[in-house]
């Protein structure tokens, strides 16, 4: 019918956001894309071919994906139980956990880097803890290692995993878990068959947030691991800032963008499949 096809006036409320994104994000993105395929004056995919045929590029892509996946997994591992606790907590306990999650967001990455130096160096807190537990036989340095990078990045991004999962979990009717219990489901069975599937939309959002941030982080690798270790994002930065190679920079930027979008869209599609009826 005609009336239903007409644009909903409420959509006009999205106009400021659309304009803003178009100007500060869409236009530069198109320029970037243009620069990556318009090197010699005629459009060509040659820059991508050149980039992808260089073995070093594959090391960089591998670094990017490995770190992003590890950071996302670590955030999920830490974030899910926290979100669950947060959704069950009441009153003061809940407020306290929320503050503990949100407050660190207001501390800049550079400030955090100083803390990490203390935590991750050879005589740092982690090393001493592992020695104390008898897990390590001699002190080890985590600073300037991939493990240190993953730990530090997860520390920055974990709120972006917790909050979306929490916001979904708190809407799940607590009676559902009780109903499952009275039907004979053990706590573990209830978790895997009720709480987890129902929180899938929150997990997908959290994974999309953390993965895209971890794949494109620039400052944190610079502070925690340095030049020896390159990701698509750090390589993009170096190309523009130090190597003055805009061709390479825009190519790596586009590759990074494609990878991130593919993972985000893919995980959303996967959750739809797994979520079935919901």
């Amino acid at each position, binding site marked *: 019918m005609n009336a239903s096809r007409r644009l909903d006036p409420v959509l006009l409320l999205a106009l400021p956001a659309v304009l803003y994104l178009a100007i500060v994000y869409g236009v530069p993105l198109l320029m970037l894309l243009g620069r990556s395929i318009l090197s010699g004056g005629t459009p060509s995919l040659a820059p991508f071919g050149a980039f992808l045929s260089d073995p070093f590029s594959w090391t960089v892509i591998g670094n990017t994906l490995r770190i992003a996946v590890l950071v996302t997994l670590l955030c999920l591992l830490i974030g899910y139980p926290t979100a669950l606790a947060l959704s069950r907590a009441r009153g003061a306990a809940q407020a306290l956990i929320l503050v503990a999650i949100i407050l660190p967001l207001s501390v800049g990455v550079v400030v955090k880097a100083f803390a990490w130096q203390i935590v991750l160096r050879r005589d740092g807190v982690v090393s001493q803890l592992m020695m104390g537990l008898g897990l390590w036989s001699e002190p080890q340095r985590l600073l300037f290692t991939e493990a240190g990078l993953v730990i530090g990045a997860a520390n920055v991004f974990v709120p972006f995993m917790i909050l979306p999962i929490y916001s979904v979990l708190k809407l799940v*009717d607590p*009676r*559902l878990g*009780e*109903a*499952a*219990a*009275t*039907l*004979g*489901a*053990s*706590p573990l*069975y209830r978790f895997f*068959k*009720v709480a987890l*599937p*129902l929180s899938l939309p929150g997990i997908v959002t959290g994974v999309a947030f953390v993965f895209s941030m971890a794949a494109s982080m620039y400052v944190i690798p610079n502070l925690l691991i340095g030049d020896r270790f390159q990701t698509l994002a750090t390589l993009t930065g170096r190309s523009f800032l130090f190597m003055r190679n805009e061709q390479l920079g825009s190519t790596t930027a586009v590759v990074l963008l494609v990878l991130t979008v593919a993972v985000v869209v893919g995980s959303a599609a996967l959750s739809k499949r797994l*979520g*079935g*009826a*919901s």
Partner: protein
Amino acid sequence: MSQGFLSVAGAAKTFGAATVLDGVDLAMDRGEFVSLLGPSGCGKTTLLRIVAGLMRPDQGRVALDGQDITRLPPHKRDVSVVFQSYALFPHLSVAENVAFGLRARGAPSGEIAPAVKRFLDLVQMGAYAERSIKALSGGQQQRVAVARALVVGPKLLLLDEPFSALDRKLRETMQIDLKRLLREVGTTAIFVTHDQDEALTMSDRIAVMHRGRIEQLDTPAAIYARPATPFAFGFVGLATGLPGTVYDSANGIVTVATQAGPLRGPGHFLPGSPVLLGVRPERIALDHGGANRIEAPLADAAFQGARVQLHFQAPPDGQILVETPSLPAAAGPGTSLKMSWAIDDTLVYPAPAEAA
């Protein structure tokens, strides 16, 4: 043997300063259908949650089928619950909801599908097996919730106001269907309601709850005819209550001075005791054939199909309720009519405390 299939002894629960359950005792036979009837906030849901294991009592014990289950977690109790909000799993289909309990208990996969089909057919939802829960009406969700709870063959089924969200017509159908279904499956059940008609029609016995206690546990007929407390009298069935003071007591019959005149009833009270005198509306006849006789002006008549309900003004500001097959000829608002009832139809209670 079957006596005490379920037994709750001295169950007590407080939340902060509020005593919600104040020493509840309840014993049920195997296969029995007992309703918990009481006003909002009297502790019905709390008692149910304690029996289901969703809440620990502060004091008291719960035993089922000869086993003390007071400290057993819910998933080891074999007690199914139909929640007021149904609590169906929104991410599962109708059939998967019903299969949930069987899967959780590790039933052989070959047995699950036939059992699910059987119970969906029993609640007349066989045609909806593959539907999403969100595409069901309230009554249909309710049926699925009952099938899901029964398919695991629980020792005990608990239903917390399962029909309160349904309209009257559907509710009556569901009451009959549920009763038939439970008889077929042979399940012992506790049914929570604050609707006295529902309790009277469905139950083998009714537990009248008031302020965290069970005031009377008896058959519907006995509760209606001989309510044990003024609360049970007022809560179950329509009733007239006249306050008064005993001035004579002999041979188990007390004579009570009321604003409507002297009235008599069975009871043992000392002269001077304040009492509440009660009588059911259908026990009052519009003549002076009974021993307790009064006359009062008609205030209002409500036609109810097969019967007429008459409201009389009783001094000083009370109301007398009478039910008769038909309105006496020439009676209108203001007409003063004679009425009477037998001494044996009179109920005499100690006057309830004022502040109560």
